[in-house]
């Protein structure tokens, strides 16, 4: 080692400071958010349904993901600046109190809820024509947000299930909406949660003196009971988070369950969250998703079009296409519900 240090002593002497500056640019995080195009992710790789196993699906159905980079390094920020498809913004307010790891946890939780919603909608849709299909699910309430002043912050994890709350006069409620009626003082009150391993735990939590609330945000969702649902399915661990793949997940699961191949050999992609009634919801990162789809040469791209006069994903997508000189008439398909997308794909076979 000494021989090398001696041989390159001049280089070490003159390059040491620039080297440190370069490392600083590469590791120092800043309070910004970079959003850039990502890629396509085939839903078949995420979920496998034990049904129609000999069915040959000629095309593909993929969700579209974008890269959301909270707290990028200075170098990443500069790279994003020179990426014509990237958007740079100040770190969103709802992310500012969370670490990057917590932001990822929230994102994966969103994805998990989205996949469950997709299974419910697809199974219910196909069960109308195929009585063999059974879907069973339960309502749950989970921890979706934590204020930085929340007591026992580290003990409560995102995604933990709310079980019960012991309020005034030891009244126990199991609905989050009932908590306000039985928690009239600042506490402390006992919350009982169930973690992802299924273990219940109870914590005494007081309201924050300044805000007058406990500092937990809950979200209601439905979780599929995989034991009683038929056919069975398997989920693969995912590296991509967020709820915006809901519509495409629903279409793909429906395709796995139906006799007909609704892809008709096409590369189908798109974006849009899925609601339990089959309607779809708006998503963010329209520009990046359109560019991703264009770069990947998709044949059909579904995008939410809810007819809102002030803002709409489809209208924004059209603007993006026009701004970047992308022809969109043949592949950008506006839809308001899962049924719209299904009707479009089934119509291709006529």
């Amino acid at each position: 080692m000494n021989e090398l240090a001696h041989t390159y002593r001049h280089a070490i002497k003159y390059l040491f400071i620039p080297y440190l500056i370069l490392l600083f640019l590469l590791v120092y995080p800043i309070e910004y958010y970079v959003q850039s195009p990502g890629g396509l992710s085939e839903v078949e790789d995420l979920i496998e349904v034990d049904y129609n196993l000999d069915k040959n699906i000629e095309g593909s159905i993929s969700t579209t993901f974008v890269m959301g980079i909270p707290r990028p390094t200075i170098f990443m920020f500069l790279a994003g600046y020179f990426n014509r498809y990237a958007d740079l913004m100040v770190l969103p307010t709802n992310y500012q109190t969370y670490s990057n790891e917590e932001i990822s946890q929230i994102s994966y939780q969103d994805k998990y809820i989205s996949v469950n919603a997709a299974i419910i909608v697809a199974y219910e849709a196909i069960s109308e024509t195929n009585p063999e299909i059974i879907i069973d699910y339960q309502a749950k309430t989970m921890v979706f947000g934590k204020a930085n002043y929340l007591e026992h912050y580290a003990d409560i994890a995102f995604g933990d299930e709310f079980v019960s709350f012991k309020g005034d006069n030891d009244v126990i409620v199991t609905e989050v909406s009932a908590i306000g009626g039985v928690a009239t003082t600042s506490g402390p009150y006992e919350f009982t949660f169930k973690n992802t391993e299924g273990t219940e735990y109870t914590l005494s939590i007081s309201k924050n003196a300044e805000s007058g609330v406990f500092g937990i945000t809950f979200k209601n969702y439905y979780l599929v009971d995989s034991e009683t649902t038929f056919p069975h399915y398997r989920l693969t661990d995912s590296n991509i988070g967020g709820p915006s793949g809901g519509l495409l997940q629903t279409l793909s699961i429906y395709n796995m369950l139906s006799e007909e191949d609704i892809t008709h050999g096409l590369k189908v992609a798109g974006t849009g969250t899925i609601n339990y009634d089959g309607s779809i919801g708006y998503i963010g990162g329209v520009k990046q998703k359109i560019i991703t789809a264009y770069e990947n040469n998709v044949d059909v791209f579904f995008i939410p079009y809810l007819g809102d006069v002030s803002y709409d994903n489809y209208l924004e997508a059209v603007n993006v296409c026009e701004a970047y000189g992308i022809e969109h008439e043949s592949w950008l398909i506006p839809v308001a519900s899962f049924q719209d997308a299904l009707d479009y794909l089934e119509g291709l076979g006529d």
Partner: protein
Amino acid sequence: MMKKYIASLKELKQSFSYKALFDACIGAFVFALIMMAPVFIVLIQLLVVFMYKVRTFTILLIVAALFFNIIYHRLFKQVLIKKNGETKAIVDQVTNPVMLVTTFVLLVLGLVILFVMIPIWLV
């Protein structure tokens, strides 16, 4: 060919103590890493920001890994030759085949990452 290589290896061991070989190995690795670490970090960060060009940046990372390998072996040889200039031929005979093999292994690993791991990872 293998016998010749083993003979060269024995000769190398006679010319250098284990401590000298270990020192050359660690020194070359550390210096190669100092040189190439920023390149790797830059490429990884560019890959994240330009994820839609994931395959292009993966290929660049594979090329960077091959460069790292070459730099490491050149530095390793440099240290040994500096310790004992008369052994240049024997050092070449021992390290060149190793460099070729490791280059080939890195290339195969890179292709596995490119065509197998990335599609699995992007789920």
